[in-house]
């Protein structure tokens, strides 16, 4: 029976493009920005906010900015009635912002320290780098010794001593932040483990330390260290000012870190401990191989939170009379050869930029790492 009737289609259906409104830029916009009346409203508000903030900011920071010249060049004039940021000021004072009072002839040592530090961080942070075990050795053993010799001096090998009183600017900010971060993680882990310990003495010591340190503001600790301590100990034994601040910051950060990590320890299900015990692992191996890797992964965002807070808290070392990055800017903006309202604003804008870049950088790196860890754990 010949028939033109088919029950099966013999030619494939023409593939149609998705509706225009669902593909490409338009589709993305629709899905992400205009998916509901509420989102449309939000988008509109954001656009207005951006239009309101960004152009004047760019105009101030870039378009109308003064890049070279002196104080007069930064002031309102006929051809620039609304002057923007006075980057000339930052340029002239930059070396002071970076090195503080560090002797000019010796500043290469600080540069070398920055390079060594950046190298260490890069090696450790790049997850696919070769020999990361060597990197850890370099970062936690070689680098501290090298930095100490470079920055403080070692007359025996021809590096004249540089008192920490002369340190300042970015150098101090980086040193205080790095020491705080590097000390606080291991100390925090130990304190958190001690607080969950079955041995009462260890447990109560940890509880007392954490609660005491968390109970007082950092500024008070620094203040006590700088104002009270010298009165109690003889002049010769009084520790270096910067060292006092470093100890204060490290103690502080480790107390906070301990609580963050304890949260991670609590989050580990009991079954994990029991399984480890069933396999015959002792306390230390259970902790090191089973509990801590999971706890640290859970608490990673909070750990970074502590780091970022610590980085910004470094500005408090001014209380001890140490000129950190922010303080050098404050000092320079009072320079009578430069001072004007624009110069002050520029100084603070520069500080904001610096802190933002550092903190945002840390945050992005860890975000990437979190995603990687999430993938791995499936």
């Amino acid at each position: 029976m010949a028939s033109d009737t088919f029950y099966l289609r013999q030619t494939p259906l023409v593939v149609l493009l998705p509706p225009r409104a669902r593909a490409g830029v338009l589709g993305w916009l629709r899905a992400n920005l205009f998916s509901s009346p509420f989102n449309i409203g939000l988008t509109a508000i954001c656009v207005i906010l951006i239009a309101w903030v960004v152009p004047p900011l760019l105009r101030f920071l870039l378009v109308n900015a003064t890049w070279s010249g002196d104080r007069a060049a930064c002031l309102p004039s006929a051809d620039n009635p609304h002057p923007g940021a006075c980057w000339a000021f930052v340029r002239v004072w930059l070396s002071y912002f970076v090195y503080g009072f560090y002797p000019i002839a010796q500043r290469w040592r600080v540069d070398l320290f920055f390079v060594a530090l950046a190298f260490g961080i890069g090696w450790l942070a790049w997850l696919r780098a070769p020999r990361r075990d060597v990197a850890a050795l370099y970062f936690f053993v070689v680098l501290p010794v090298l930095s100490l010799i470079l920055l403080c001096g070692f007359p025996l090998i021809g590096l004249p001593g540089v008192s920490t009183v002369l340190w300042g600017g970015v150098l101090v900010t980086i040193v205080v932040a790095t020491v705080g971060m590097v000390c606080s993680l291991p100390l925090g882990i130990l304190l958190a483990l001690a607080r969950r310990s079955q041995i009462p003495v260890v447990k109560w010591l940890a509880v007392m330390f954490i609660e005491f340190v968390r109970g007082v503001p950092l500024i008070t600790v620094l203040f006590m260290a700088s104002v009270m301590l010298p009165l109690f100990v003889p002049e010769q034994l009084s520790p270096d000012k910067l060292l006092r601040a470093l100890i204060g910051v490290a103690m502080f950060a480790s107390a906070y870190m301990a609580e963050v990590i304890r949260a991670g320890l609590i989050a580990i299900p009991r079954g994990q401990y029991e399984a480890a015990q069933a396999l015959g692992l002792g306390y230390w191996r259970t902790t090191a191989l089973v509990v801590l890797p999971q706890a640290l992964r859970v608490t990673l965002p909070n750990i970074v939170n502590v780091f970022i807070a610590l980085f910004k808290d470094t500005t408090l070392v001014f209380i001890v009379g140490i000129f950190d990055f922010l303080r050098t800017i404050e000092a320079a903006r009072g320079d009578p050869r430069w001072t004007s309202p624009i110069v002050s604003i520029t100084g603070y804008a520069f500080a904001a930029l610096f802190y933002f870049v550092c903190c945002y950088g840390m945050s992005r790196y860890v975000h990437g790492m979190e995603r990687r860890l999430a993938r791995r754990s499936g």
Partner: protein
Amino acid sequence: MKRFATAFAIATVLALGIQAAAAQATLKAVKDRGELWCGSNGQLSGFGMPDQQGNWTGFDVDFCRAIAAAIFDDPTKVKFVPLTAANRLTAVQSGEVDVLSRNTTWTMSRDTQLGIDFAAVHYYDGQGFMVRKSQKLSSALELNDATVCVQQGTTTELNLADFFRSNNMSLKTVTFATADEAVKAYEAGRCDAYTTDSSGLYGVRTQLAEPTASMVLPEIISKEPLSPAVRQGDDNWEDIVRWTHYAMVDAEELGVSKTNLAEQMSSANPDIRRLLGVEGQFGESMGLTNDWAARIIKAVGNYGESFERNVGQGSPLKIARGLNALWTKGGLQYGLPIR
């Protein structure tokens, strides 16, 4: 037992040694270490502040350089320690610095209760007023009914109220938490005048958008004698610091300056001969060399030179000499005689 006694004796000697070291003459300590430790402000323009290379400059800084010059004949042998208002006095008490040269007011309670001594008034400061030139005022007594911007919670606020009350003038104050806000309000025209210590007023004026549109009125309504301070208990060291100041003032009175120092060395004036150490043993009596004052003048100049260079007409601050002029010119700086 004998061993224990020996150990105890050694410990006692060591402990006494530390005690003795603490009370040891500051001058010897400074000479041994090869540099003077000087506490300064670090962010007060004209008085103590780093320049772009991180070198310290300013009127208070010059004073420490003068002491270093008197001791070492080298004004660079100073380690400056930046101090805050909160930790400056402790730094002197604990020996962290040999001398504090940081806009510190000499008051009785500080002098008698805190274990520190003040050497000599190096700068007479006091509270003043800044007004807009367009107001055409010439005296603070014309500020009746004026609105004054002031930082709250400071002695400045009290002085202001006292001044207006004692002169039967009415006052409207606008207070702000920080000095920056108070200045902003003054600039925005919310007040007729801004008040703080007069040395600060000149610094603030340079930070205004139009510094030349404002002026500082001549009246000083409070006493802020600023003096370098040393730890109590080392009279010789206090003498050195005190006479460093008077040598600078004496040099200005006698017309000895950085530029004419060489010719003045052969001057016939006995005052100048004693000052410059051509005659007499005045430097050696303090444990210095007899040309101590000549070294000071060579390094930083006389009082007037240091003043004009750092805060006076030679600087952007342009502070008038006022109370800090020599007594012969209507000021309060009076050089004690060297004889």
